[in-house]
């Protein structure tokens, strides 16, 4: 039986075992590259996506549990081909080595900036804790998040309005 899910604003009918992790659906059925398989066990954060705006490990979330909630992947952040402020900040800070963790990092940080546009260093560190970077790009990742947060301070508008 097909299960319907909404990803990046589009509804898809998926014919798969209801227990299939959302990550497999995103990558194998919908051909989205953003969310990555790192551990498959909820331990690395490479697969982080938003489910109704909240960060979630897509490797742990069964397809059937998504329900009507909206899934957003990093492919859904850009608007009209223009990267959002946080994505741009990762480029500006050159915050990637291999980059395998980066989509998950961006999605987790984006979730923070949406509820707290000007987080402090400690808040950022605590929030980013579930996501690991094997290459050791952490300091640049922190700088990129701060850069996006500071930019919103300069402009004096909320994160979403900056897009």
């Amino acid at each position, binding site marked *: 039986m097909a299960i319907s899910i909404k990803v990046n604003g589009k509804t898809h009918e998926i*014919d798969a075992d209801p227990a299939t992790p959302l990550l497999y659906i995103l990558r194998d059925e919908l051909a989205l*590259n953003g969310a990555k398989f790192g551990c498959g066990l909820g331990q690395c954060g490479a697969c982080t996506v938003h489910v109704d705006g909240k960060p979630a490990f897509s490797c742990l979330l069964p397809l059937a549990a998504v329900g009507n909630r909206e899934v957003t992947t990093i492919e859904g952040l*850009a608007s009209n081909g223009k990267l959002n402020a946080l994505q741009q900040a990762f480029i500006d800070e*050159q915050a990637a080595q291999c*980059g395998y963790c980066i989509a998950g990092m961006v999605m987790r940080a984006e979730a923070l900036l949406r509820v707290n546009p000007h987080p402090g260093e400690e808040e950022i560190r605590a929030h980013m804790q579930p996501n690991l970077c094997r290459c050791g790009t952490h300091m640049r990742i922190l700088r990129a998040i701060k850069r996006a947060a500071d930019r919103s301070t300069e402009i004096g508008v909320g994160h979403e309005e900056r897009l």
Partner: protein
Amino acid sequence: MTVLSRREILKSGALVVAFQFCSSFPSLAQDAKQLSGSLKRSSFLDSWIRIDAGGQITVFTGKSELGQGIKTALIQVAAEELCVTPENIKLITSDTAQTPNEGFTSGSLSMSESGTAILNAAAQTREILLGLAASHMQVPADSLRAVNGAVESPDGRKLRYAELVKDLDLHVEAQPVSKKKNPDTYSVVGTPLQRVDIPGKVSGGAAYVQDMRLPNMVHARVVRPPAVGAVLQTAVRPSKPCRVF
């Protein structure tokens, strides 16, 4: 230098690394009898550089981008010796159907092997272009300069690479010695350039082998038994294609 005993090193907590500088570094000075870097394995210039009729320059490497930034670095090397801007270089990495076989990407060897090959191939390609322009303009090649994708003569005449490609044959073996630029005159190498692979990595672009999708590709998964010695009793074949090994 003073020789330290192991005990003294441990005492001071210092790490002492000694280098022996050779008079000729293989990547810097050409050994006249030998081709440099991976040119040893793939010696034709067109294994490394091709310029199409429209003047588009494509550079090939058998090394893979693993986050070490070699795509960007190799583009800089090629752009420098070909006298074009980095945006004018299209780089193809480790595609077995197209690129030279450079074995593994490991051991910090990409720049010394592939970088050296591309540096020399690019310098030799530029010299061939200068030679072609010289015969078109009927002037000595050494009076000409390559600037921004074109060859310029002292009297102000100019021929773009695209205008020279119809006579250009890069299916020739590399020479052991290249006329390389003096590093003091470098304008691309040694200047910061944003990594070309990062935009794709922050936007869900295809960047990893896992992102390859081939026709009729199926996904396999090893399912392990819950206990030692367990045997598979039944397997339900799903509606989608499935292979059981």
